[in-house]
């Protein structure tokens, strides 16, 4: 019985109680035309971003704990290996217990499958790359700050920070949409992480018998100076869906009527 285990750990009960009292906060983003670094037609066409609601903060350890307490098949000692590697939630004290200091830190050591399952429990899903990139292009005052060298420099300085220090709590400064922590805290899973870099050439140069990729066109990245964003794509593309790391967390997206696949 999960309840009995919880009763033995009072602060845990409080943490979960608090999680229930305050539903996760989402903010509406109107969308619009957007020059993604991954252009729609592989050349230069702007993407059209449909309106969506993005979770204000990444999912915290306490929120993820409340989820696995209800959906016990996602606990680290019960999860099917096909959905998460051996490091899944390895930073928690027990399979259903976290350190007080971890409560408000973003949850990491979560696989894509686990992140997706959490979002489904909130009536949401992981954001697409495009939805994530659209919101993350903003700074505190502008919807698209990407051309500003200072914006890029700030992100790159985060990338180069050592990763062995403790993560800060979620809830950093809000951008112009009211969304927090898109940069500077953790990397984040996106729904289509396995769709970002599909081929620069349809044939393996060394072996003409191997057609690794289908599709006539080559994927080309736009705005190659934007290392800050391209590195994130490279990182996400290198992950497998069951992988977990100490630096990858997630947030969720809700979509209103008229969602297209």
């Amino acid at each position, binding site marked *: 019985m999960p309840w009995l285990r919880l009763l033995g750990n009072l602060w845990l009960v409080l943490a979960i109680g608090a999680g229930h009292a305050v539903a996760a906060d989402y903010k509406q983003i109107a969308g619009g035309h957007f020059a993604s670094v991954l252009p729609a037609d592989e050349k230069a066409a702007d993407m059209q971003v449909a309106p969506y609601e993005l979770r204000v903060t990444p999912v915290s350890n306490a929120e993820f704990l409340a989820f696995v307490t209800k959906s016990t098949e996602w606990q680290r000692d019960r999860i099917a290996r096909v959905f998460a590697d051996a490091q899944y939630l390895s930073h928690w004290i027990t399979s259903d217990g976290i350190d007080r200091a971890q409560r408000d830190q973003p949850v990491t050591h979560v696989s894509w499958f686990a992140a997706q399952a959490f979002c489904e429990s909130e009536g949401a899903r992981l954001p697409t790359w495009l939805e994530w990139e659209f919101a993350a292009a903003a700074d505190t005052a502008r919807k698209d700050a990407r051309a500003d060298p200072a914006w890029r420099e700030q992100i790159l300085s985060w*990338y180069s920070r050592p990763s062995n220090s403790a993560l800060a709590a979620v809830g950093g400064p809000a951008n112009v949409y009211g969304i927090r922590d898109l940069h500077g805290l953790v990397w984040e899973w996106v729904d289509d992480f396995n769709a970002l870099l599909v081929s620069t050439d349809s044939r393996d140069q060394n072996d003409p018998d191997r057609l690794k990729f289908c599709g006539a*066109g080559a994927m080309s990245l736009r705005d190659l100076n934007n290392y800050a964003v391209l590195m994130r794509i490279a990182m996400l593309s290198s992950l497998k869906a069951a992988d977990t790391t100490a630096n990858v967390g997630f947030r969720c997206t809700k979509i209103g009527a008229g969602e297209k696949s």
Partner: protein
Amino acid sequence: MIRHKLMRAVAFLLVLLGTSAFALPPATQSNKLPSDSIYQLNLHLVDQGGKAFELRSLRGEPVFIAMFYASCKYTCPLIIEEIKRTVQALDEADRNRVRVLLVSFDPARDTPAALTAVSVEHHVNLAHWTLARTDPTGVRKLAAILGVQYRAMTNGDFNHSTMITLLDQEGRIAAKSDKTSALDSELIAAVGRTLAGQNP
């Protein structure tokens, strides 16, 4: 200056990614699905005849599984022909036990009728082959579990990695192949091993 920052960032990235661990549990034959079976995935599919079924209903025999879409002009026909050739190269007893499942990337257009048209065009034996569709979320999850990358293009095509995966009787990945124009002897050998593993 920027190059220096980039190098540091790349170094960080390498550290970040150097922490993956993977272990394959030994084969079991209990009724409980193995932890590393892709049949752990709740995946609802609809076949070329419009009949709904679950991915895990394929448990029990080896399965070649691949993803494709009906309007694909390039490698998808090659994938289908490659699986046909591989199945044809098996001993007759093995051939009759192996199943083939093709799942579409393109649920918006690949109706049962479109899937049937592909099966007719390629003369596949529907006693052993199933062409199926699922919803967009299901496509993403199946691709993720198989390690297939795909991306929808604005012209209706999909860029995707080509991959033929052999699942053992319990739904564990027994072999993968990305060859589409030469018979992959490793894939054939893996079928033999898989079937031998069940009947020692």
